[in-house]
């Protein structure tokens, strides 16, 4: 059994404790915004927040997160209105889009701890996540846009 909180709701899933969180989220609970890319913590497509920290869900067995608070892209906002999601649309970051849930979750973790990161800090933080389409420049722009707009408030 797997017991944790997913996007604010308690879930109780009859899954083998060794099951990676990724598959419980995607296939058992049908929150498919979180993606499978490599299965070995190399690409970041599966990034979710566990107790607020960006984590590879493909490497995290559900047994290890008993009672934890898990947030996926679906839980970042109810309606795509998180500042990063709006910035992703405004900067037209996505191409194929497959990696972008993971990119946004990774970026949200950065901004939660460092609301006004330098370009170098953005790059250092985001280099865990691969984008094969090569949207890196726009990912940086979108994160900078959120930091800038937060600073304007």
């Amino acid at each position, binding site marked *: 059994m797997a017991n944790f909180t997913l996007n604010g709701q308690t879930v109780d899933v009859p*899954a*083998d404790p*060794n*099951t*990676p969180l990724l*598959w419980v989220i*995607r*296939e*058992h609970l*049908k*929150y*498919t*915004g*979180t*993606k*499978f*890319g*490599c*299965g*070995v913590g*190399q*690409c970041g*497509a599966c990034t979710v927040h566990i107790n607020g920290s960006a984590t590879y869900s493909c490497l995290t067995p559900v047994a290890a997160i008993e009672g934890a608070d898990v947030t*996926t*892209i*679906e839980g*970042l*906002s109810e*309606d*795509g209105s998180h500042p990063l*999601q*709006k910035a*992703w*649309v405004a900067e*037209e*970051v*996505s*191409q*194929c*889009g*497959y*990696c*972008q*849930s993971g990119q*946004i979750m990774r970026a949200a973790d950065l901004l939660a701890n460092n609301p006004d990161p330098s370009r170098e800090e953005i*790059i250092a933080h*985001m*280099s865990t*996540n*691969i*984008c*094969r*389409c*090569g*949207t*890196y*420049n*726009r*990912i*940086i722009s979108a994160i900078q846009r959120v930091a800038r707009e937060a600073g304007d408030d």
Partner: protein
Amino acid sequence: MTKQTYTTELASNRREFLQGLSGLTIVIGSTGLITACSTAEAQQIARAGGTDLTANIWVTIGTNDIVTIQYPGTEMGQGTSTSLPLVLADELDADWDKVVVETVTFHDEAYGNPFFFNMLYTAGSLTVQAYFDRFRLAGAQTRRLLVESAATHWGVPLTELETEPSVVVHPASGQQLSYGEIANFTEVPETLPEIADEELKAYGAHRYLGSDIPRRDMPSKADGSAEFGIDVQVPNMVYASVLRAPVEGESALEVDDNTARSIAGVIDVLVVPEGVAVVAETYEASKWGKEALQVTWSEDSSFRDANLETDLDESLRRAEDMSLSGAAWRSVGDITEPFATAAQVMEATYLSDPAYHAQMEPMNATAHVTENGKAAELWVSTQTQSLSILGASEFLETTPDKITLHPMFIGGGFGRRGLRRQKYAEDAMYISRAIGLPVKVIWTREEDVKTCAFRNAAAQLMRAAFDSDGNLTGWHHRVAAPRVLEYMNPPRWEKSNGRDVIAMLGSESSRYDIPNFLAEHIETERRSRVGAWRGVGTSYTKFAAESFIDELAIARGIDSLEFRQNLCHNNPRALNILATVAEMADWSRPRDNTALGLSLAGYSRTFGGGIAEVSVDRTTGIITVHNFWLAADAGYLLQPSNSQAQLEGNVVFGISNTLKERLNIQDGVVQQSNYYDYQVMRMNEMPNIEVRAISTNNPPTGMGEIGLGSVSGAIANAVFAATGARVRHLPLTPERVLAAMTT
């Protein structure tokens, strides 16, 4: 400029519209549900639910004012699911906010891409190029029909009417009717209105094109709701993981599945073509079951002796063996005489290793096979509706109409998803047929790397002849590579007259005015599964051609920019690209610790030029790219911002290709397995990238692959400028740089 081309397009389009009326169409019913059906059924629905207007195969005007446009491509990040319907909407003068875009989900040559023998096939950066004129015409004819109908309805001359988005207005009387209102009383005539090409909107006169209309797919890709193939869930679905044979063409002889079957949730273990599948109630159980299999493989494949190093040596031998000749990809004049009488002949050989697509979405398919194995519903991320359907029908030995396809968003294509026989889909169909349930098959990353149809290795011999005045009089480009197209799609190969576009694209070097020119395909034996890769052949042919041009310029003592300018003095678009990229990079400014390299490498009909600024660590051989500038002229830009994004992505992919990407094959087995040993470029390895998409008044061409040819030659040339070492083997690994520096 486009007039001549357009006249022939008009003729073919007239047929297309007639065909369309007797073929398949799509209507939006009164319920608002989109239904694919035959024209007879469409007319019935139209009669039953009002009188929606389907003027041609591409667009339907609903009486509710909804304009439904058929999109014949697939969406893998290139943005044509927005930009192409936008072409029609602009010419129709539709309100874009009332446009619904529907992807064509069936195989019908009326919707197909003529560059691919009328298959629905999204590849080669050819979607906009193939459909631009057809979509303009479809939009213009539909608009004319609506305006004529309104004129008749009001009893006023056609010339007094204008349109605003989705509304016909009569300024003199102040009357207006929405397109939906007009559709309600308009009948499609036997003959559609004639549209002269000068009646179409001119470049620059568009309402939407050129003004960066937001891509439709952006919001769903920012909130996680975009549905890719791997996201499909269907009722009663089970999962399967497949252990694929390590070597092509082999099968399981013995399977010890005792442990696998003991895993909770495992339903069955099946031997499938070239693999063993574990079927389970959950994905994880199927994967654990797969990992527990003990399989004895047949070990009888002729690919068992495939070894990259020796195979590439053999390719090189063939490239250099002048007694061998091959299919001409491009031939101008006759190269025999200039080489025989040359004052100077230069030669160089270039090698390139295989490369993997590394698309982010691992290969997967969901299938439900019914009717005793003779029908299937198939959900798959595909670059081609037609080949997914035709390939599936061939696999099941049934007819294409028995395949119901759901093409999904694609998590990276790059050529990976365009084969006729899609093995991941065949796995799903095979298993579903055997167990009678819908099955989702997900290949692990490792299974895909191991069995992917990747970019072939190639060896190339470049030869140039100069006369006694120093004129470049002969060019000979010999590409030793397998028949890639034959493996990807045998029926297409049979129609291609021996011309292998996948292996050869780029070797035409058509920007340069060289009087005697031959690019030829020296065929080699296929030593692995092979397929198209981003940039198609340009990712290696342009590396060779643009490195070699640099070698010639240096040998002649001429600046490599000037040398290229001299060779394309009759080609204003190429000259403009050279001038633009040189200005972006400040080409003539001397650098202290870095060096520049140039490449003039377009893609098909798109002009492109790149300049790299690099430094090289002489101890380690590591190349650092500091800046990359790319200029491209793909004609009239439909979506400028999206074009810029494509160029940026191309540079990233191109640098990754140039510096890092390499698959190795030993004893028929791919040696890499995942992103840790097949590394692609990350954000912290990215140089400063500046791109410029120039809009010119020429027919729009492709933007999705221009960087692959532009980048590698520029970096190799910059490495030479920095070190004096010529690295002629792609990728330019540190070992190869060091080796080149010591020779």
